[in-house]
Structure formats: structure tokens, C-alpha cells
């Protein structure tokens, strides 16, 4: 711990978070809006109704500016793996690099090629080829996200790899295990669904503005139907995939799961906290004891968390203290070691690697084979090497191994509560648009418009939970975030942080202005 420049770590994290959060302003809209546009264009091609061509082109213009900034910021993120997280890239680049490369070669080329036809192909290629291009852009954008999310899911649940002590790198041994890890599939589907919901809220909100202004009202109502239906189906899918994601998290990231529910102590019949306010973040006392802040206020649903997680209202779920101090799981019958024990085993793994390296350098074949055999021994790998990351810590500050509980708790609950609001909005908007009564319900139109910023907040909250809930790990239990940074001077990262902050803010303002200008021009380009 004492060998790490924590100022550098914090600024590096801040810079990556800034870039990722800015990137994620644009990407989810692209993911969902692409399919909304594809559905609208399909209606145009099937019916031959020119009005649908107009609607399609209007939403495609808004899609275009988002797409460009989304890609630009995505490229910056990929560069930051090398510039700011070179130790991480060294340690797991052989695994993490593969999905990123596939994303670049397969999905990114697919969407980038056909986006030209999507925008500039009107009246130059056949209607059907134009439509095919739009669908391929939508599929390409989503496939692009698939590979990124597979890479991210691997950081949450590292599978399909083996450690090579000669290079001190982790290497991929099972590509399919990484691609089809339940964490990866759930993450992909849940993130896609959240993007669809975001895009649906965006289209509903902008269309509501047109109704308030009494402009392009028929176009707006038709757009609301498309987006509300897409929103309802996607919201149901979002709930289903969110539920699956949480169950998987309970298995592979129990600390994140306990943090997002602020579950201090493990028990059976665990209630679900519907709404709550926390007193404080867990701390460590001078004698090393973990202290947990309780709730100042909470409303809970009895037995619900146990039931939702294990389909058993009596199921045991470990809390933060149990995970830190070690516990016996009555559900599985397993004894889970304490963090102090994991730290001891992690240090043993690090020492073994050092001894192996020294034997290698000294040409001591006997010692090299002795230590090298351990890395090939599945029992030792499972009992000791899997806690490699814990070896970077000491057991005098165990609270440092607990993620930020209030942040995890609030981001999770905000995301869930807002998702309920979005689903309700879609249902109400669909009911009243089909009765042709929306224009008379101005309050509802205002709610729809003001839901646009809320959906962005919910989307960011999801990622805050995913990434902050995993801390202090960059790769769960294997590599601490502080060991992943490039050895730079903290001041250089501070400079680039502020440069990025200014650039992103400028780009954001420009993007909003472009959007507002396009929207004000109207769906028919000037009414």
C-alpha cells in the first residue's frame, strides 16, 4: 500500500470516470434510437407513406450528432487503458484486448460503413438497401457495445483465464467462457435495455415538446406511439435482466451486492429496502474492527431480498461484516475465509511469484520447477492465487476493502425508482395518445420533457453502481485499482483531467445547441 501514490490513483480514476461518464451520455441514445429509426423506416418501406420517411430523417439527424461524439469519446477511453492504466493493460491485456479488438474489427467497421449509406443514401440507393443499412447500423452499434460489455463483465467476474508466471500476465484459455459468462450476457442485455429505455424517453420527451408547441402534432403522436411501445417492452426486459444481473452479482460479487442494499450483517429472511437514508460509510476502529453505519430511516419489504435473490424467503445473505470477518454460509454449507485470511493468502501468492522470478533469474531450475508447479496446481490456484489482489493490502484498514456503501446504495435505488417512473410514463403516454387526448394534458407533456434529464441520471447511476460497487478492485479480487495505474506524475494527470473536462464541457454545450437547433427546425424541416 505504502508504495502507491494515492493522489495519482485518485486523479487517474477521476479522469477515466470523467471520460466514461461523458461517453455514456451519448452511447445509450445511439443504441436505442438506432432501433427506433430502423422501425420507423421499416414502416416507411412497407407502407410507402412519405410521412414516415420524414419522421425517420428527423430522428436520424439527432442520432447522427450523438453517434459522432459517442465514437470520439470511446476512442479516448481505449487510449486511456494504455496511457493511464498500463499496469492493468500489462496484467490482463491478453484477455481484455481480444473483445476490444473484435469490437473494432467487426462491429465498429459494420456500423461505420453503413452509417454513410444511412445518412447519404437517400435517393441514391434503393429503399430496401437503405433500410438494410439502417438495420445494420443499429445491429452494429449494439454488437459494438456487446464486446465492450463482455470486457467489462470479465472485470466483474474474471473467468476463462490462466496466470503465466513467466510473463506475470493473465492469458485467455477459454474465449467462450468469457463471452458466455452469465455476468457478460446479463450485463449486455441489461445495458442494451437501459439504452432502449433512454432513447424511448428521449423520443417521447421531444415529441411532447412538439405537442406543447402545437407543431407537427401528427408526427409527434406517431413518434410517441413508436417510442412508448418500445419503452414498455424494453422496460419489462430491463426489469427481467436487472433481476438476473442482481442474482448473478450475489454469487460472484457478494460485497457489491451487500453494499448496494447496505446490508451490514448477514441473516436469513432479508428484507428489501424500498427507500432508506444511511447514517455513514463503514469505518475501521483503531483495533481493526469494522464498524457499520445504520439507517437513519428506511421502508422495507419483509423477506423480499432473500426471495428475489435465491427464490427462497428464508435464504441467508451475507452482509458486509460477514464478508470482511469470514462466515459460514448455511445455504451452501461453505466456510468463507475472512479478508485477513485472504490478505495472508494473497501475500503468499505474491511471495511465491517473487520467488519464482528470482529462481528464473538465478537459473535455479529446481526452485523454478518447485514454485512453477504451484501455478499449475488447480487446488493452490483456487485456495491461494485467487486472492492475489488481497496481497496488496494490510489488515489494519479493512474498511478500505469495502466499496463506498452510500454511493452504491443510492445509485442502485435511484436507478430502480426512476425505472419505475419511466415505465409508468410510457404506459400513460400510450394510453392517452391512443385516445388522442395528450394535447389537453399539458402537465403530462411537461412531465415527459422533464423525464429526459432523469433518464440520463438513472443511466449514469447504473454505471456508478457497477464500477464503484466493485472497488477497490479493477478486476474483482485479482487486481486492486491502485496497482493498475501507469506510473506517471500525478500533476500530468491533473493537467489532462482539466483539459478533458474543459473539452468535454465545450463539446457537450455544442452538442446540446446542435440538438436544440435541429429540434426547433421541426420534423418537416421548417414549420
Amino acid at each position, binding site marked *: 500500500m505504502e508504495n502507491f501514490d494515492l493522489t495519482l490513483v485518485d486523479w487517474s480514476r477521476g479522469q477515466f470516470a470523467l471520460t466514461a461518464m461523458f461517453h455514456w451520455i451519448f452511447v445509450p441514445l445511439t443504441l436505442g434510437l438506432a432501433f427506433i429509426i430502423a422501425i420507423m423506416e421499416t414502416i416507411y418501406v412497407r407502407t410507402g407513406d412519405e410521412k414516415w420517411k420524414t419522421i425517420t430523417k428527423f430522428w436520424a439527424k439527432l442520432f447522427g450528432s450523438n453517434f459522432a461524439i459517442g465514437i470520439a469519446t470511446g476512442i479516448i477511453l481505449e487510449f486511456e487503458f494504455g496511457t493511464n492504466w498500463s499496469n492493468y493493460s500489462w496484467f490482463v491485456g491478453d484477455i481484455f484486448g481480444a473483445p476490444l479488438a473484435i469490437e473494432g474489427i467487426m462491429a465498429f467497421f459494420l456500423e461505420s460503413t453503413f452509417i454513410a449509406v444511412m445518412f447519404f443514401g437517400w435517393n441514391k440507393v434503393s429503399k430496401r438497401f437503405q433500410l438494410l443499412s439502417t438495420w445494420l447500423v443499429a445491429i452494429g452499434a449494439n454488437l459494438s457495445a456487446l464486446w465492450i460489455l463482455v470486457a467489462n463483465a470479465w472485470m466483474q467476474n474474471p473467468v476463462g483465464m490462466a496466470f503465466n508466471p513467466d510473463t506475470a500476465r493473465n492469458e485467455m484459455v477459454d474465449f467462450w467462457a468469457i463471452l458466455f459468462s452469465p455476468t457478460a450476457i446479463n450485463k449486455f442485455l441489461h445495458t442494451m435495455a437501459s439504452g432502449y429505455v433512454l432513447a424511448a424517453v428521449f423520443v417521447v420527451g421531444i415529441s411532447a415538446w412538439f405537442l406543447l408547441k402545437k407543431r407537427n402534432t401528427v408526427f409527434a403522436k406517431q413518434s410517441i406511439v413508436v417510442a412508448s411501445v*418500445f419503452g414498455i417492452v424494453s422496460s419489462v426486459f430491463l426489469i427481467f435482466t436487472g433481476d438476473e444481473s442482481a442474482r448473478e452479482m450475489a454469487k460472484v460479487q457478494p460485497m457489491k451486492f451487500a453494499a448496494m442494499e447496505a446490508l451490514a450483517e448477514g441473516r436469513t429472511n432479508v428484507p428489501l429496502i424500498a427507500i432508506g437514508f444511511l447514517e455513514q460509510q463503514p469505518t475501521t476502529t483503531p483495533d481493526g474492527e469494522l464498524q457499520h453505519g445504520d439507517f437513519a430511516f428506511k421502508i422495507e419489504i419483509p423477506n423480499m431480498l432473500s426471495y428475489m435473490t435465491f427464490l427462497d424467503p428464508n435464504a441467508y445473505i451475507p452482509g458486509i461484516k460477514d464478508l470482511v470477518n469470514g462466515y459460514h454460509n448455511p445455504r451452501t454449507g461453505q466456510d468463507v475465509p475472512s479478508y485477513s485470511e485472504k490478505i495472508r493468502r494473497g501475500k503468499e501468492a505474491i511471495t511465491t511469484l517473487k520467488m519464482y522470478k528470482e529462481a528464473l533469474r538465478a537459473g535455479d531450475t529446481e526452485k523454478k520447477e518447485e514454485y512453477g508447479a504451484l501455478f499449475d496446481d488447480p487446488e493452490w490456484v483456487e485456495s491461494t492465487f485467487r486472492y492475489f489482489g488481497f496481497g496488496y493490502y494490510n489488515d489494519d484498514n479493512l474498511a478500505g476493502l469495502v466499496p463506498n456503501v452510500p454511493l452504491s446504495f443510492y445509485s442502485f435505488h435511484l436507478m430502480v425508482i426512476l425505472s419505475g417512473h419511466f415505465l409508468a410514463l410510457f404506459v400513460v403516454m400510450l394510453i392517452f395518445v391512443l385516445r388522442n387526448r395528450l394535447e389537453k394534458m399539458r402537465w403530462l407533456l411537461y412531465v415527459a420533457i422533464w423525464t429526459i434529464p432523469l433518464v440520463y441520471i438513472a443511466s449514469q447511476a447504473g454505471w456508478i453502481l457497477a464500477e464503484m460497487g466493485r472497488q477497490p478492485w479493477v478486476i474483482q479480487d485479482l487486481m486492486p485499482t491502485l496497482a493498475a495505474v501507469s506510473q506517471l506524475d500525478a500533476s500530468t494527470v491533473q493537467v489532462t483531467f482539466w483539459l478533458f473536462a474543459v473539452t468535454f464541457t465545450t463539446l457537450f454545450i455544442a452538442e446540446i445547441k446542435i440538438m436544440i437547433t435541429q429540434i426547433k427546425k421541426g420534423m418537416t424541416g421548417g414549420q
Partner: protein
Amino acid sequence: MYLSQIIQLLLWPLVILITYWLVRYNLKKLNKKLAEDGEEV
């Protein structure tokens, strides 16, 4: 092997397909209502 994950993945195109069917159905309803109310569709 990985069957449940593959089945889960197939839900993705299903979401789009179901959306498309429901959009067509609801647009017919909307257009009918707009025509009844004398709005040009």
C-alpha cells in the same frame, strides 16, 4: 453448454420483433382515432 445464455441472448432480437408488431398494431389504432377526430394522417 452455455445453452441458457444463448437462449437469453436470443431475447434481444425478440424484444425488437415484439416492439415492431406492437407498434404496427398501436399505430393502426392511433391513425383510426386521428381520422375519427378529423386530423390529417
